[in-house]
């Protein structure tokens, strides 16, 4: 995973509350058993003029040339609610988004972002959604700076920050604790033997 420290980019506004993962990537756009080939399906229901088509809907922000190349997405409250499909994060990442700024996130979606190098930033995004402007994200400092130089700080849990800044693979990290896990599991099995089928 690509480490994330700082990023300066135009921010694309899609300020709607409760944007669900079906909207981010409709189930019908998840065509293959894999994690790639999803960016064309990103926001497909809003982005194209008809279902399954690829004719851009001119009124949708993803098709607005003023925001071309944006790596920051601005969203509404409860962003990423609904289905746990990680395809939503894969599609956003493949399209080129590296950060989403929204007042709140669904917990499963937020975790999926962190596992895929996308920084979920819990901030009121509406104030940042005026004319197209570059925003500067500093993850180690936990700040977002707008074009006028106004600095907003955001909270992110230490684990998520460490994974993103280090570009770390969680499985590798955890497997280093293999012996600790095995010992704990043996003790758990002794106390709760009915839990285990792998006697």
């Amino acid at each position: 995973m690509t480490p994330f420290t700082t990023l300066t980019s135009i921010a694309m506004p899609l300020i709607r509350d409760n944007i669900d993962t079906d909207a981010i990537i409709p189930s019908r756009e998840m065509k293959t058993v894999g994690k790639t080939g999803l960016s064309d399906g990103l926001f497909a229901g809003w982005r194209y003029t008809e279902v399954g088509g690829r004719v851009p809907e001119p009124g949708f922000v993803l098709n607005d040339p003023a925001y071309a190349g944006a790596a920051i997405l601005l969203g509404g409250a409860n962003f990423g609610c609904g289905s746990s499909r990680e395809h939503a994060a894969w599609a956003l990442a493949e399209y080129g988004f590296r950060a989403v700024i929204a007042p709140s996130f669904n917990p499963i979606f937020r975790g999926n972002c962190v596992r895929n190098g996308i920084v979920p930033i819990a901030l009121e995004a509406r104030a940042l959604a005026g004319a197209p402007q570059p925003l500067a994200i500093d993850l180690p400092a936990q700040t977002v700076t707008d074009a006028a130089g106004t600095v907003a700080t955001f909270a992110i849990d230490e684990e998520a920050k460490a994974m993103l800044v280090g570009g770390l693979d969680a499985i590798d990290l955890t497997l280093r604790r293999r012996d600790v896990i095995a010992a704990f599991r043996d003790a758990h099995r002794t106390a709760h033997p009915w839990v285990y089928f792998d006697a």
Partner: protein
Amino acid sequence: MAKTLFEKIWDRHLVEDLGGGTGLVLIDRVLLHERTGGVALESLAAAARPVASPAQVFATMDHVVDTLPGRTDRTIMPTGTAFITATREAAKAAGITLFDLGDPRQGIVHVISPEQAIVLPGLTLVCPDSHTCSQGALGALAWGIGSSEAEHALATTTLRVTRPKTMRITIDGVLGAGVTAKDLALHLLARFGSSGAKGHVLEYAGTAVRALNVEGRLTLCNMATECAAFSAIIAPDDTVFAYLAGRPYAPKGAMWDRAVADWRTLASDAGATFDTEHRVDAADVAPMVTWGTSPQQAVPLGRAVPAFADVSDRDTAEAHARALDYMGLAEGEALAHAPIDAAFIGSCTNARLSDLRRAAAILKGRRVATGVRAICVPGSGAVKAAAEAEGLDRIFLDAGFEWREPGCSMCFFAGGESFGPQQRVITSTNRNFESRQGPGTRSHLASPETVAASAIAGRIAAPAALEQIA
């Protein structure tokens, strides 16, 4: 120190405190389905990471498979077959138990896991599916994850989890006649909102919760994810123990007695503190239906579509207007006047035997209104067989419902079957998002009995209102 039920389960699974509020948590069960499970297994195999404990992992086919009679690996959804075959091959290679097509145990993952007693009180259980919170109904800590986290759980038997906050909603009193667990879930969503339990483990307590059978509890816990909860949980009691006893994967004999003795300790202690507490009077809960495109946009049956001023604490003006436009409704409009095009009974929310029995009691001797397409999809092979053994299939078929094979079916649109644009659907499912059940489809969430009554009336109707029609 007094502990909550969540804290008791967390503590007995906490391998290590990783600092910063994150714990390395032991995972007792991983469940997979073909939509998100196959990709996790394939990705693990490609990284040459073995599944650490395949005996603790179970997989089923539910999301992509067809539900029409005579189904095969071929799907109406384009490219669906690849998900089925990839999951089958990966499960076999990893040594995972798979409830495949044709297996009488196959069905929706959150229906079959309790049925088979794969979920037990006090367990940690994860599945790459947001409705995994359903299974907290049996007193397990069960939550939905993404595919990467599923890989992590499969490879390490653990997850790195930011410790969730705790919330308790105590519902005392008695639910009124005809008021179901689904109505309670929608009432709570309308009251606390779609972010109302964000990141919390939500413990349901109180006499009205205790009075629910296990199937009702599964329905209630199922929709906790719609209020952004980490999960939901209910303290296990004799109702749960009686439900689990003798089921295939439940402990047996002396081990059963030992397990039950342990499970009896799994309740929040008197004096345990929660980050948030709410109290609800069961008598305030009415049969509910959604009018909008978020599950929080729900009102008591018979009530009109709310004006923005009445819900401005919950919705923005823009969200309210957008939902009305999508649904083809106006402020103050009586929902009962809206003709429906389709009725759907199914999903991990409401497709268990008691759901079908209650719907059948309304359908018996009646016919679905002309022009309404009505579909019933039992939640599992076991539900379907039990329903057929007591003749429920005949009641559904005679009323004009389709009677299908188990699966998630038209709870969501995967590119296959759809209800069609602007079609108004009354549905026992969990999400009324834009285009959830098909591009442009307008979904109204309700209980199975309200779906059945509406199918007969041809418009959104309470079961009680049928007496005047019949």
